[in-house]
Each structure stands twice: as structure tokens, then as C-alpha cells.
């Protein structure tokens, strides 16, 4: 069974990547293969990596307030490449903007209060809904 592959992207110019790193560690501990882009990944680089690495889910961390233009751009680039991958966003997202992000096509939005278990469960559920294999547990992985 194939292990779930997740791209954790840190787009934009903001350098606060505590959240991105914590989520990446949690997904890895949950048995997934995680690719972290590092800081200041461009939307183009994120879409290209998503394609090349054949990921099942893309997670984005945005704390600067620029979530809407960034999400719009990345969703458009993924669509251009014909990639049907669920995109999740976490960070400092005002509640009113959450519905707008979902309407744009973002699959799920997480605030500061989301637990790691909630995020891991959401990534698994979204990946499965998109037709990927369920994630291997660490015990059965390799």
C-alpha cells in the first residue's frame, strides 16, 4: 500500500514557520511522507513540487494576511497542471475569510486552535476522498 505523500508549503514572504514545521512533524509521525518547501516558496514552485513529487495533499501555512491572493494563485496553477489535489490552509485566518477560501476551492482551513489529531485526520480523509489509498500506519509502513 502506498504511503500518503503530503507537501507542506510556506508561500509568501512571512518567516514564521513554527506552525508549518509542527504540522510537518505531526504528519510524519502519523506515517506520511512529508515534503517541506522551506520559507518563501513561490506559488509556481509549490505547484511544480506538487506535480513532481506526486503528492496526495497540499498544506499551506500563511500568517501574513495574504492567504487569499496566495490561495487563488496556487489553486489556479494546480488546475493548469491538471492536478486534482486537495489544498488545506492553516495560519492566522480571520473567521470571515474562511468561507471565502472554501468558496475558492480550498478543501479545509485550520486556525491556531486546531489540534494535530484534527489536522492529521483531515489530511487522511481528504486524501481518501480524492481517491488516494488510506495512509499506512507507522507499524505497517515499509
Amino acid at each position, binding site marked *: 500500500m502506498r504511503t500518503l505523500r503530503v507537501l507542506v508549503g510556506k508561500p509568501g514572504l512571512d518567516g514564521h514557520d513554527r506552525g508549518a514545521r509542527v504540522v510537518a512533524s505531526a504528519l510524519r509521525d502519523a506515517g506520511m511522507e512529508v515534503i517541506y518547501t522551506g520559507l518563501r516558496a513561490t506559488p509556481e514552485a509549490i505547484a511544480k513540487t506538487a506535480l513532481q513529487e506526486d503528492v496526495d495533499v497540499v498544506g499551506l501555512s500563511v500568517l501574513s494576511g495574504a492567504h487569499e491572493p496566495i490561495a487563488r494563485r496556487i489553486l489556479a496553477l494546480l488546475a493548469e497542471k491538471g492536478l486534482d489535489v486537495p489544498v488545506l490552509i492553516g495560519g492566522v485566518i480571520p*473567521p470571515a475569510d474562511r468561507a471565502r477560501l472554501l468558496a475558492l476551492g480550498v478543501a479545509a482551513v485550520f486556525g491556531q*486552535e486546531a489540534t494535530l489529531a484534527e489536522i492529521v485526520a483531515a489530511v487522511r480523509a481528504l486524501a481518501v476522498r480524492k481517491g488516494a489509498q488510506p495512509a499506512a500506519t507507522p507499524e505497517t509502513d515499509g
Partner: protein
Amino acid sequence: MAGERPKQHHTRSGTPIKPLYTAADTAHLDPARDLGNPGEYPFVRGIYPDMYLGKYWTMRQYAGFGTPRETNRRFRYLLDSGQTGLSVALDLPTQLGYDSDAAEAAGEVGRVGVAIDSLADMEAIFDGIALDRVTTSFTINATAPILLAMYEAVAEKQGVAKSRIAGTVQNDLLKEFGARGAWIFPIAPSLRLCVDVIEYCTTQLPRFHPISIASHYRDAGANPAEEMAYTLAAGVAYVRATVARGLPIDAFASRLSFFFYTYTNFFEEIAKYRAGRRIWARLMRETFAATSPDSWRLRAACVCGGHSLTQAEPLNNITRTTIETMAVACAGLQSVFTAAYDEAFAIPTELAARTALRVQQIVAYETDVAKTVDPLAGSYFVESLTDDMERAITGIMSDIEARGGMVRCLEEGFIQRRIAQRAFEYQRALDGGEVKVVGVNLFRSEADAAPEVHHGDPEAEADQVAGLAKLRAGRDHSAVAVALDRLEAEARGEGNLMPAIQAAVRAYATVGEISGRLRRVFGEYLPPTGF
């Protein structure tokens, strides 16, 4: 059950807290040697003899967004509300050396702070604000030399002598590599520019603090002892680099200032600051052989808020920052920024910004905490905890020294990995309920209305880009080219770059143009992608 209490408590730094402290816990203390009177070595009781009886801490709220004109309005509002110092938040393109019309800046102009492209923007921000009447702090790092040159140029245009302008540029690049991520150049040229600013202020701007050695390590995950240790270790690295430049220790040590984070762990925070002052004083006097008492003082500002604030039930954040502000008032800090209750959502609304300032004013004027110096001295618990913190902090600092010092530890990613590990541990402890946060994992309410949040002006980016186009069209092109060529040539040498940067700024060269030439010479830092 929420009511269950574990029998053994620990500080956030991991030190056990005893159920009871008695005279036996402080019997070893020699007050003259270990505490000193306020204003006297080793400054545990505060760096000045009269502390807040002479002057309250500076109430300095971080502000800035959108265009320079909007920020000018918010500054005037805060000054009218009784604020005593300005603190400029810059947007990310300005922090990273991109102009507002750069591709990298799209969507980020004016978002987390104000956009500054050229001297014209700095003039607009301080329009009608006399620079000899305020002190101004800039949270600016990689582009600090450029913004300092602009501020000085504005003062000159106002007719204010450079000997009279006062304030701080953060100018601490080490913590950008370690925690905050707003670097441009690799570590060595970044450190060179930091020292350029320290040297320039030391010799030219007698009232300006050239660096605020900052503890963003804490907000990225470090515990309080690690926070103080990493920050002081960075301080040691700057002292060494500046001494290597040829400045005598007593010429610049009194110009160094520090910036920390304060959360709700009240007594531990107080002990952290008291221990930090003792460690720094001893380091400066014993290790670096500074002879002036002013060189021994740990001048500290802090933010109350940061990662301790929650999106859940945001009004609770006012309670949190009040406790934090009480802690720093007990600890005797010099300048305080109280975060607003809505900062876990967006930059603050006007109401939230004013309420945050009111927290400080209530602590200062309504409570009795600032009516005597160092009110908690001699407390069995506080003195014992101060010793515990000192041991923990110096232990971490010794480990950093053994690994080759703070610069080496950052180059090798040791600090970054340690912080990421702590952040992960903390999140798991929060999810598991070992760390308790009211409204988040304890007494959580389901129906929670979000506050009104600040919405950026959707036209701000377009306005800023249009203003920049006009500036580019209207300036003396050959003067700009000459200044930028000079800067690039000097960057290839070894001298202080401040004069060349000043010349470029005065020719209205932009932040992006100046940074671009430096990028060409220095290259860019490559961030690690591990986690």
C-alpha cells in the same frame, strides 16, 4: 477532569516548583553580592536606582499598515491617546528588500506593516511629527541600514540635529536565521551590516540604539530559559563582532538593547528577567572587561502577547496581557508593547489598539506595582526561581559556547532544530492537556463570536505602486545610478557601508534598488528545508 492537579509542578523551562519555599531556600544569598541595590551591579533589582519612580517604562505600541499616510494617521492617534514612543511595523517586502512593484511583493504590500519604498515614504509617515519630540523603534533587520539612513534624512529635513534623534533599529539578523525568517543575505555579510549600524550609531548618533537583540526564539518554540540563553548568546556574538571591528567595549556596550517575549507564567518571567540582568552584568564585567557600569546594564524591552494569545474567546487575551504586563512591571523592564486582543486574527483595530495601551496605563497608574522599586525582592520563591533560571540559562549558554558559539550553532542549524523540537513538544502537550489554555483545551465554549477585525485597504497596494512609479519618473536618474554604483563598489570592499547607503537614500534610490545591488554582491541565504 479539569479539577485534577498533578502533585509535581514544573516551570515552562522544566525546573521543578516546590510546594513551599522558606527562608532556607534563600539563606545562601548575599544581598550585596548576589542582588545589589537597584541601579547597582549585578542589577538583579533593576538597572536604575529609582526605576519607575523616576520614569515609567516607555509605552510603545507596534503599529503600521497600508500606506505611509494611513500609518501617519494611526501614529497621531496613538500619540494623542498618551503613547510615549512610536514603534514602526514594516510590511514584508520592505523587510526583505523588495519594492512594492516587485513580483515578490504582490499581495503583501502594506499587509503586516507599512510599505516604505523610498525616502518620500518615510517623510510621509512622520509628516507633522517632530522627531526631536518622540523616540521611534523600527522592527527592521536586513534593511535596517537603509531605513536608519532614511529616518536620519527626514530629521535633517525637519531641522532636527542628528545628535537629538532617539530610537532603535532592531538590526538583529541572528534571530532571523534562528527564528523569524526575515533574512536576505548569508550570515557573514548580514553580520557585517549589523556591525556597520552599531559602529555608525556609536560614533554618529549618540541617542540611537543600533540594535535590539531580540528573542523571537521564544515565539518560535523555545522555553523561557532557552529564550534568554539564545538571546544573550546572540548578544555575546555581536559584542565579539563589534570588538573585532576595533571598537572598545565601553564605547558601544551601553548602546545595546534587548527585546523579549513575556507570557502568562508570571513568576518564571520575573525570575527570567532578574536572572538575565545578573548574567549579562557578570559577562560584560568579567568576560569582556567592561569598566563602565553603563556597559553592564541589560536594557530590556518586551512584548506581552505573542504566542500566548488565542483565537478562541479573544477577549481573554486582555486578561493574559494584563497578567504579562504586571509581570514586566514587577521585573523592571524599560519599554513594553502590549499586544491587542485581536492580534491572533489580524493586525489590530483602532479599539483593540487603544485597549492594549490602556492595559499598560492601568497597570502603571491604578495599581501599586510601580510605586516602589523591585517589589518582589526577597520573596523566597522569586529569589529561588531567579537562581534556578540563572543555572538553566548559563547551562544552555555554556553548551552553545562548547559548540562554537551562537553563529556556528545557527550555521549548523542546531538552534533551529532545538526550537522546532520544542514547538512540537509544546503542541503535543497542549493537545494532550498537560499544558492548559483556557478557552482552548479547558472550559472551551462552542459558540464563540469572532471580533470585528481590521481589514486592509484593498487599494493600498495599487496606491503604493502608483506612488512609486511617479517617484521613479521624477527623480534625478544619473544621481541614483551614481549612488548605486558607489554602493556596489564599496560592498565589494570591507569598509562601513552606511555613508554609501545614505547617499543612495538621499538620491531617492529605493529599498529594492539598494538591496538589489547588495544581493548582487553578497548573494542570498539558502534556508534549510528540514523540520
